[in-house]
């Protein structure tokens, strides 16, 4: 299958070796070339300030992409992450603001009106996990294809978020809350730290634990996995809980970052996130892919968006360039891989 060939060729070995940069060599190279290009055209691109901006901007996509990698490795897909994110963000906001009444209150920042950020974060993640559970259940019990279930979820959760917020934003949190999105540790923005932390955890899980192995197995050949005694249902259920978790986490960080939550948040995230994962070399047909690749894919898209804005390219032309470069990135990767495997 054309796409599978590509899928297989990409990132096969890495998954059971400690980060295997060689195998992910191509995308990295492509990224580097892109960055050099930008920094020539716009020297300010390469400033620490800007690079940290880029990282902070991608960190939320990145968190979602980590979860999405788990799902796609099982040959599944989750289109609902954006809607879950909106819903979870609003719930967190409500918790932090103590209800809808003073939704617009700017908040003097010092003190929270409702509960502290800890509860807000827990609420967001709780909502995400719950949503993931529901969808995972529909997929494993009723055997409805993930695409359909999560498409339904995408619509339903968005509706819920709108209903719940009456269409308007909820904003103005206390500093402790906002710190999670806007704060820094040394020069490094907090969201970036969160992203890196979870990327590492996810990498270890996939490469060095039984659970990780089983995910690859289920994605590679579900029937064989079943006959090898794996609990395929449980594993599939779990990955949707994981995307749910990361949607909730992402929602919290985004709310902190924007100092507000709204029902339209995360619209269209699903495609960007799936794109990062696929650009990172994970096959939509399951069984092959790495977190490392996903991180590269995410950063690549972030750099692209940022660079084009810096160059002040017209909005319309930007879309054309982005489209073309995404394809080129993967084409280049596939080309290099096919050469390496001499097939």
């Amino acid at each position, binding site marked *: 299958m054309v796409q599978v060939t590509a899928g297989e060729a990409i990132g096969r070995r890495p998954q059971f070796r400690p980060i295997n940069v060689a195998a992910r060599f191509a995308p990295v190279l492509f990224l580097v070339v892109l960055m050099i290009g930008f920094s020539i055209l*716009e020297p*300010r*691109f390469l*400033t620490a*300030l*800007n690079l940290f*901006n880029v990282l*902070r*901007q991608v960190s939320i996509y990145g968190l979602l992409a980590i979860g999405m990698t788990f799902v796609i490795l099982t040959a599944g897909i989750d289109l609902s992450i954006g809607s879950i994110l909106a819903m979870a963000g609003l719930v967190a906001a409500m918790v932090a603001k103590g209800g809808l*009444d*003073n939704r*617009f*209150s*700017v908040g003097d920042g010092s003190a929270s009106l409702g509960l502290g950020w800890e509860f807000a974060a827990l609420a967001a993640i709780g909502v995400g996990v719950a949503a993931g559970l529901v969808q995972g259940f529909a997929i494993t019990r009723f055997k409805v294809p993930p695409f359909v279930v999560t498409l339904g979820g995408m619509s339903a959760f*968005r509706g819920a978020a*709108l209903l719940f917020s*009456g*269409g*308007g*934003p909820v*904003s*103005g949190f206390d500093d402790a809350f906002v710190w999670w999105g*806007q704060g820094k540790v040394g020069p490094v923005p907090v969201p970036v730290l969160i992203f890196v932390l979870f990327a590492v955890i996810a990498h270890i899980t996939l490469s060095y634990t039984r659970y990780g192995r089983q995910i690859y197995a289920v994605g590679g050949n579900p029937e064989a996995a079943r006959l090898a005694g794996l609990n395929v249902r449980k594993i599939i259920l779990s990955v949707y809980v994981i995307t749910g978790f990361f949607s909730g986490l992402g929602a919290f960080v*985004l709310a902190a*970052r*924007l*100092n*507000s939550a*709204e*029902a*339209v*948040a995360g*619209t269209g995230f699903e495609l960007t996130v799936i794109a990062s994962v696929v650009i990172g070399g994970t096959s939509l047909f399951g069984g092959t892919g790495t977190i490392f690749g996903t991180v590269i894919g995410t950063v690549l898209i972030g750099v692209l*968006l*940022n660079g084009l*804005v*810096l160059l*002040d390219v017209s*909005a*319309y032309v*930007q*879309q054309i360039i982005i489209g073309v470069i995404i394809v080129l990135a993967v084409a280049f990767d596939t080309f290099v891989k096919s050469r390496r495997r001499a097939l």
Partner: protein
Amino acid sequence: ADKHLTIMLSSPDLAFPFSVHIMKEMQDEAAKLGNIDVVVSDGQRNSSKQSADIEAAITKGVDGIVISPNDSAALAPAIQEAIDAKIPVVTVDRSVDSVKGILAHVGADNVKGGEVQGELIIKLFPNGANVMNLQGQPGTSAAIDRNKGLHNALDPLATKYKFVFEDTAGFDRAKGLSVTESALASMGTPPDAIAAANDDMALGALEALKGRELTGKVKLIGFDALPESLGKVRDGSMTGTIEQMPGKQGRQAVDILVAFARDGKAPENKITLLTPVAVTKDNLNAGERLGELK
């Protein structure tokens, strides 16, 4: 008692706070007038969807339609069908010129709004300024018109007022933030003013300004006068926002429709254009949603 009515209120996108507000006010007005069933339709930024909703309303045999069209051209056929079916139609916010027989239009032309935005900048910086322009969702008429207006106001004075940066942030808060961050990073000296085509983007930009400790230093002007941004204007972190009185538009539209449907009373003037105003610290209570702010 008043004659019972069923009317459709059709919005281009009920996920867009501006439209949501119009809808709320219209529903509230209908409730006030009493004995009216309201059918709400959400165009979801999709002209085909909104057309389909209008057709559904015709099937349902509603007594009237108030519509804020997703696109002034694309909704024409559906509205024509309604009129052919003897259903009175009032348009809000955005007019549909190509159709004859529309009962009335109530709006505050977005182009004018953009011009007001530009005029505010001129007022703030009599002797010129570097302006950064955050445009809306590409292709949507709100984005096009507001951008057009801003340029109408400033381009004649191009020597004094330069657009140092122009890009879309899709009417979206997160994009407003990231685009502004990137833009600021790309400029040696920050711009004097940022004009955003809606408040969501402005509020996003505000967070970016905070990050660079530029709050208040860069004059930030939004659009739509959402309660939240009124709050920011009050505390000075935003300089202004454009009020198009969407609520007033909606209420008037409903009044006109109901008056016609009940007593066959045609409006004296077919077109009502409310002039948008720039809300700043000085005229905060020009913001019709100030009340919602606690």
